């Protein structure tokens, strides 16, 4: 019995028991459904073993949306709890777990997955490639991420969730103050998922450097590809810092080392520094691909080429460099003195300059254009004002002295939500809607999409603007309750309504997917938006080989020029296409990783040893495996092309 007690959650409530039952039933239903419709083989052949960047992208997309809902429910619960003074919906312990999992799920498992989803699907198409450089590693990345996410979510029903915030500051997160296993989940799940991210980073850098279509010089790459390149460079430089910090944190918690402990020479400030040396670049890892998407969307729907391409590229590069030089602004209040704070204050505010350049370039892209307010464009147009407010409040936070008053308050919470929501969520929804036809062969309904947009845009403003005021009135962040006299009630109530608006918007998006899948026409052609870049030059939905013939490029908007200046993109004849084989190895290896992680969380060493052996065997087998891939024959390609497009290239 004792053995099982460690798996019990520490603060069980009816909600948790209900969710356990619900999760159990859903799981049984899903498994039964798959067996009933005899889809196991399909699932295994087409999805679990796939190395196709498009399918991996779609799996990332589905996971990101699932995580968006998990994080969204967390958010609603928090907003409901704080919607009035002295509310007793949640206890302090529950609230702390919920805001911690909210942050972790949203940043690591929603936002990161969402950008990776779109990079996976779009980048190879935009550069005219057949896949990423290392397709099998790509599958490994996905399954590492997926297993990390599942492990983390398991904490909700087995053993209990971490509760020291997504920043997990030591010593609070250490054994001395959090003896409970919750934080182990944080350390280990993020380690596993982070490994996947790092592999993605390397994979995409190589892909973008080595696999571009002939003629696509660096300065001819579409902006989304540029941002993907820089983001993956940031990933490759920043994530190892997190890896090291998490490893040290894990050792403190499991093996009694003293990196961040209170006594024996531990240094809690070291964690804060490590965390933000990774953490600040991380926010740009998230927002740069979004900038790329907006560049594509605004240019397409203004019917114009992107204004100031070169300065756009330069500003991304400057942002990515500065991103490593500002981390101290997350703890101006740690007592490092006026000199250090002054320097980091200046570097911080300097980031606003290249960011401003980008905003103005988007505005000038609309200038003299012909603006179609489709759903992706609505998100882009909504992004500009809201992100500007988030950005200027960032500059305000960057003034070190003033930050002494904003730090740790709702003002800060308002800032980062008002940059992350328009900067990441809006962008991902815009990108998803924009590339949806390429993924699934039909378009999302515009009318429902617009309703969803307005709910989300107004919801965002209503949810987060009041927080500026509450913060200036002294409401600290992460407080599960406050008294009547404090006077924060009204602002939090407004914010709760905003949260409901956001929830409504997301429900509409789900409904839209269902509705459009059911009723939308499949007859949309290859280029439903009248777009400009290479991904639109192939079929809809994209066949597995991407392009029947490799495109040849000599401008920044090759597809636009092909449409309007009669340039030919596809010069060669169709020939056999070499493709990588599917492989079950990444999936199997990551199942071992999951068991490994679970074993570590609960210090079940036999599980850890068995699964380590499993991982090692997988690596060993892979090293000696001979796999030359396969060919799709020219006739088959021609056949597919005829079916999909009618004309024969």
């Amino acid at each position: 019995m004792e053995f099982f007690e460690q798996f019990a959650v520490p603060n069980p409530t009816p909600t948790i028991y209900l969710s356990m039952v619900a999760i159990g039933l859903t799981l049984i239903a899903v498994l039964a459904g798959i067996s009933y419709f005899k889809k196991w083989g399909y699932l295994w052949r087409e999805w679990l073993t796939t190395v196709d960047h498009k399918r991996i992208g779609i799996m990332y997309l589905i996971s990101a949306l699932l995580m968006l809902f998990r994080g969204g429910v967390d958010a609603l619960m928090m907003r409901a709890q704080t919607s009035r003074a002295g509310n007793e919906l949640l206890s302090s312990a529950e609230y702390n777990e919920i805001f911690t999992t909210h942050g972790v799920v949203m940043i690591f498992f929603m936002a990161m997955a969402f950008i990776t989803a779109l990079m996976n699907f779009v980048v190879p198409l935009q550069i005219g490639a057949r896949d990423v450089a290392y397709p099998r590693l790509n599958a490994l990345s996905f399954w590492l991420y997926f297993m990390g996410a599942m492990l983390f979510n398991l904490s909700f029903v087995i053993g209990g969730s971490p509760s020291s915030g997504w920043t997990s500051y030591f010593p609070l997160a250490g054994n001395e103050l959090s003896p409970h296993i919750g934080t182990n989940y944080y350390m280990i799940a993020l380690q596993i998922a982070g490994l996947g991210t790092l592999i993605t980073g390397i994979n995409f850098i190589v892909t973008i450097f080595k696999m571009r279509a002939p003629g696509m010089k660096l300065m001819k790459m579409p902006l989304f590809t540029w941002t993907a390149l820089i983001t993956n460079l940031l990933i490759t430089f920043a994530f190892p810092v997190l890896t090291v910090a998490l490893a040290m944190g894990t050792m403190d918690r499991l093996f009694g080392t003293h990196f961040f402990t209170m006594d024996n020479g531990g240094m809690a400030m070291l964690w804060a520094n490590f965390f933000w040396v990774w953490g600040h670049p991380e926010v740009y890892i998230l927002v740069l691909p979004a900038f790329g998407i907006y560049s594509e969307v605004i240019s397409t729907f203004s019917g114009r080429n992107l204004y100031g391409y070169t300065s756009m590229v330069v500003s991304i590069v400057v942002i990515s460099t500065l991103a490593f030089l500002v981390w101290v602004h997350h703890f101006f209040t740690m007592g490092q003195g006026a000199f250090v704070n002054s320097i980091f204050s200046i570097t911080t505010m300097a980031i606003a300059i290249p960011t401003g350049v980008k905003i103005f370039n988007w505005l000038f892209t609309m200038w003299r254009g012909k603006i179609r307010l489709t759903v992706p464009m609505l998100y882009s147009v909504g992004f500009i004002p809201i992100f500007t407010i988030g950005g200027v409040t960032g500059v305000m936070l960057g003034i070190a002295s003033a930050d002494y008053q904003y730090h740790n308050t709702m003002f800060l919470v308002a800032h980062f939500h008002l940059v992350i929501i328009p900067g990441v969520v809006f962008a991902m929804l815009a990108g998803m809607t924009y590339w949806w036809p390429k993924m699934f062969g039909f378009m999302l309904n515009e009318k429902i999409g617009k309703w969803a947009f307005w709910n989300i845009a107004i919801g965002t403003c209503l949810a987060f603007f009041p927080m500026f005021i509450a913060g200036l009135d002294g409401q600290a962040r992460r407080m599960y309750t406050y008294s009547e006299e404090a006077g924060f009630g009204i602002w939090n109530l407004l914010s709760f309504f905003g949260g409901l608006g956001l929830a409504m918007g997301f429900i509409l998006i789900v409904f839209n997917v269902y509705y459009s899948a059911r009723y939308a026409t499949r007859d949309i052609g290859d280029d439903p938006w009248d777009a400009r870049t290479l991904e639109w030059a192939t079929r809809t939905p994209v066949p597995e080989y991407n392009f029947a013939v490799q495109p040849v490029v000599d401008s920044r908007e090759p597809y636009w020029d092909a449409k309007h200046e009669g340039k030919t993109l596809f010069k060669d004849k169709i020939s056999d296409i070499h493709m990588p084989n599917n492989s079950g190895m990444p999936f199997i290896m990551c199942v071992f990783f999951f068991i490994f992680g679970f074993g570590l969380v609960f210090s079940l060493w036999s599980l850890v040893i068995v699964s380590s052996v499993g991982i090692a065997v997988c690596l060993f087998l892979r090293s000696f495996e001979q796999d030359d891939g396969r060919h799709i024959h020219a006739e088959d390609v021609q056949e597919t092309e005829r079916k999909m497009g009618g004309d024969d290239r």
Partner: protein
Amino acid sequence: MKKQWLFSGLLMSFLLFLGGCEPLAVFDPKGPQAALLKDVIMISIWTMLGVVVVVFAMLIYMLVKYRSSKTPADYKPPIIEGNKWVEGLCVGIPVLIIVFLSIVSVQSTYEAESVPEGYKDQEPMVIYASSSNWKWHFSYPEQDIETLNYLYLPKDRPIEFRLYSFDAISSFWIPQLGGQKYAMTGMLTKLNVAASEEGEIWGRNSNFSGEGFAEQTFNVNVVSQQEFDEWVTEVHNTAEPLDEETFNELLEPGHLGQKTFTGTHLSFNPAPEEHTEHQGEEHEDMNEEEMDH
């Protein structure tokens, strides 16, 4: 149009918060440091409001003028690569704004970190503020008094808080007197403030520190020097002395309300040393000495 409705909504809420009926804590300073920070915040709000207005105006202009429904059906948008001057302006003006704000930031940060302007001729009164889950221990070495979760401060006297923590990182914050600063284990941080108005205000730990964090607040009574002296005498006449055993009980996690003692815990449980460049070297020396023994 919905968009305009949205924008006017934004503007309304902004005005509401500038001119709210009851002043917000940060905009209701009771001392020179908080007043300084309020001024800095107002300068930055007005500067940033300028940026916001320009961006919003440009966006509305583009959307109104170049909507496809407003342009002729056969209108073909031109190819425009960019323009050196326009792009130069897009860099130049933000650079000027950031230079201006940098000067404000550096100056005010130095000022916020030192003894407040106008109080420099006085010797600051030292108070140790140490946090333990989830309370604040205030030690007055000069007066030989220790309180739990409340402060008495004499008006018009510079005060130097020396901050540290017995467990989680906490942040000591009295918004109406000045900005916050972390209290951590194993090192000392300093916060300079002064109070220029009598009255009762609040302070709190603003850095999340676990289950009892929300209630880790304290009261601050700003009184005249005379009343302060009376309070000190009264405490010495009525309060129990603080011994090590009692203090260790106080350190147990929980909430304890307000308490008063004579003597401070610093005598038997001294504060960590201030963290300076120098300290590292001293430490090494000490270690060597220890090894010699």
